[in-house]
């Protein structure tokens, strides 16, 4: 049993309306000093085996095909320690 984390974020050049909506809301709630917010997705993938390189490769493939839409998103995969 091991956990691999996949973070999926919009590519920098894609407008992140959700992140901007959050950023706009912050000052109204009295939070200043925030110059940018980007909102993405976090997946916690539980594997029945160890999170070895082979497993990470498989998770990268999952991210590539399913978890992320690489037309607009980029992702990172890391084993959780």
């Amino acid at each position, binding site marked *: 049993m091991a956990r691999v984390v996949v973070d999926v974020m919009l590519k920098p050049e*894609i*407008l992140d*309306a*959700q992140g901007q909506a959050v950023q706009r809301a912050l000052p109204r709630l009295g939070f200043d000093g925030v110059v940018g917010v980007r909102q993405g997705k976090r997946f916690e993938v539980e594997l029945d085996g160890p999170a070895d390189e082979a497993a990470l490769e498989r998770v990268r493939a999952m991210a590539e095909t*399913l978890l992320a*839409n690489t*037309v*607009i998103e980029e992702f990172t995969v890391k084993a959780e320690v």
Partner: protein
Amino acid sequence: MAARIGVVTFPGTQDDQDALRAVARAGAQPVPLWHRDPALHAVDAVILPGGFSYGDYLRAGAIARFSPVMQAVIAGAADGLPVLGICNGFQVLCESHLLPGALLRNGGMHFVNRDVKLRVESAATRWTAHYEPGQEIVIPIKNVDGRYTAAERTLDELEAEGRVVARYLQNPNGSARDIAGIANAQGNVVGLMPHPEHAIDELTGPYPGPATDGLPFFTSILKQLVDA
């Protein structure tokens, strides 16, 4: 013999009954298609209707893309099979890379159900032949992930090749270049965020109207199939 137009039902599809009704109103034979069935049952064209396939979980259309029926639709589209994706169907087409770009959360963050004015930019697709280029029509939108997005390069390409099918006169969701619908290079695959199947009937269409501006999407394809 009337043209056969298939309407795909995925789990979570909502507007399949409406699309089937619109097909019948246009005079074609509606053929229900099931997501698990890879056979297209000799249909002459396919409609991917609106709704929330697989709950729109992960991303709208992301999971539907991998269903057996979509493998057949993707193959068919390559051979010129006319395909119309409405709302969730448009999202499925983008996820399937049959159309470029993607549909993201509306600028206002909410679901928006509204009658919107569109300008038909291209009558050169299989699905819009019965419109005049530049014709202004009223069609409802109802979605939460309707903001069309693509790389600038792609957008320029779409414009240059006349593949922008329809534009919003008042952009309701922040879509790039007011885009409401696009076509592939061959013009057989069209994706449309607004719902023409909800504008085919004086009784249930947009009020105060015009109420039936959506019908030509369905008659266009019919004419082409009959002529073909």
